[in-house]
């Protein structure tokens, strides 16, 4: 289980995918993200698991299966 802080982005790759770009600049592909998380520009802290056994059509980075998340204050 890992925790990543960053910004939610929609990436136009193929039919598109939701990404979490960490504050360090690493891009994770969000897997099984709840609808509330799928908002571009949302600053969040996501707790989840990197799935090594999942492949995707977007191929934008490690697949982060979301367990829980908090929206962070944008201050």
């Amino acid at each position, binding site marked *: 289980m890992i925790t990543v802080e960053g910004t939610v982005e929609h*990436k*136009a*790759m*193929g039919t598109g995918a939701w990404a979490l770009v960490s504050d360090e600049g690493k891009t994770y*592909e969000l897997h099984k993200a709840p609808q509330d998380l799928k908002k571009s520009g949302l600053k969040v802290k996501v707790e989840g698991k990197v799935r090594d*056994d*999942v*492949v*995707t*059509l977007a191929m934008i980075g490690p697949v982060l299966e979301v367990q829980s998340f908090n929206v962070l204050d944008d201050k």
Partner: protein
Amino acid sequence: MKKLFLSVLFVVGLMFALTTFKGLATQGTYQSIVMDFREDLGAAQIQQQVQTIAKQFNVTPKPNSEFSQADNIYIVEGDKKLLSQLRKSESKYTEFIEPNYVYKALGTPNDPEYSKQWNLRSINVEPAWEDTKGSGTTVAVIDTGVTQVTDLKETKFVPGYDFVNDKVDASDDNGHGTHVAGTIAQSTNNDYGVAGVAYEANIMPLKVLSAEGGGTVADIAEAIRFAADNGADVINMSLGGGGESQAMQEAIDYAYHKGVVIIAAAGNSNEDSASYPARYPRVIGVSALDSSGEKAFYSSYGAGVDISAPGGSTKEGEAGGILQQTINPETNAEYFGAFQGTSMAAPHVAGVAALIKASGVKDPEAVTEVLQKSARVIKDDALNYYGAGHLDANAAVKLAGKGNISIRDFFRWLRDNGYLNPRFWFDGGAVALIPKLLMVIGSYLLAWFLRVYWPFTWSWAFSGGLVAGSSGLFFLRGFYLFDLPQWPLRLLGSSLPELGSAVQGTAVLNPIFASVLIPFALLALFIGHPQLKGLAIGTTIGVAACLAVSAFTSPQLLWIGGGSAAQAFLLVNAGLCLGLAYLNVKGEKYA
């Protein structure tokens, strides 16, 4: 009487040749006529003439463009009838009157949105379609499923499977797989939508990715085995991620050993090294190019990238994307979507792999070699952005076809050497057609054999040598001109071995000419010359064919006579010629 008969035959043949000759003219259609008035007439007289034409033929001659006035070029709408009428009445006022041909690029499909498919032009697929459109091959699309949208209605499908929901119907609920299948085999020349690379290939839809766009390694490994067991020739995997997996590796090896070519996208994280499965050694990893031929901004590169193909970039608008028909998963409505991604690049390679397989190269290792050798090499690619280079469909298909004696290849050779000219066939009967044909075909087969096993370049000089050595321009021998001696034509119409007796006009061969001597001398003289060397080798092969055929059809030699002695002489010399050609061609390989 015989001369008269031959002359008539020749004239008929000539007329036939002229009327059926497909020059540029017969390829064009026209609805208007160009007239160029003489410059010395002066503006007033030209205007008067234009008005006369307008009145007489009820047409409105117009200057071609604002630049035409100076040249006095006018366009008149009209057909063949008007053309001949104008030529009759206006020839004294004009420099020329000719049809205004409408030129259309050959091989362009009629799909109305084809002009937006820069990607298909950049892989040079149009000339490849002259040879094959992928008929008879099957491409498995391991993806989100494939929905048979309108622009896939004419595309052939074979049964697939949905590994996500465990059912036979593998329809798409995301829109990705349908788009990818479109790049491979979108229905083409159907007056609708866009085109695909190998549009006569079969699509096998295999769904392993959910509507969200993710799937498990286990499902993918199963899908690979399903494809291999159900006759797929090529597998396309526009997907990636995760780590190395034993299950996937074994499935890939299994399919590879069954002869399946496996292609996967390099990944979209702009990282050094492709993602799995592209990274496995038996998988062809594909990086993405934008419309300018540069690596697309998102494409991964480095280890695992074997070749590059258009993946597009929609950063600066839809025109830079890859356009195919797909579905909107929310409404299930069809639309033409411009996508970007290495997902879009991989199916271009899968389509070309299908074209290569349809050209007769079946082994996955050989297909990979053809793809890589035919790719347009990019210099100074230190980070391996492009693998072997840019995908080139036409070069790949031509290279794949090289190892086959196909009817098409033979006819192309015949055409290039002028043997498809009707004159040839009309006059052939008068000069013992069958042995001549055997000599031509024999020299072609010998040259083909040498070309395949000892690759060298075919040049005009080489082809010319083949003809000169094997048969000469033999149709000329049936050609008689009044009052002129026939022997010069007979000379031109003779092959090298027949030259020794051509002037006398006997069928008996002169052993000095009908031997290895002249080819040997030619090679000795020209071996250092870049062009003439081709002529010398071509001649040697041609002479070999001519002597071998003569040995069986008319073994008659001056001084030696006929029978087995002449036959042996001819055969030995044919063998010597072939050996000589072999040695020289073999040498050229390393040149």
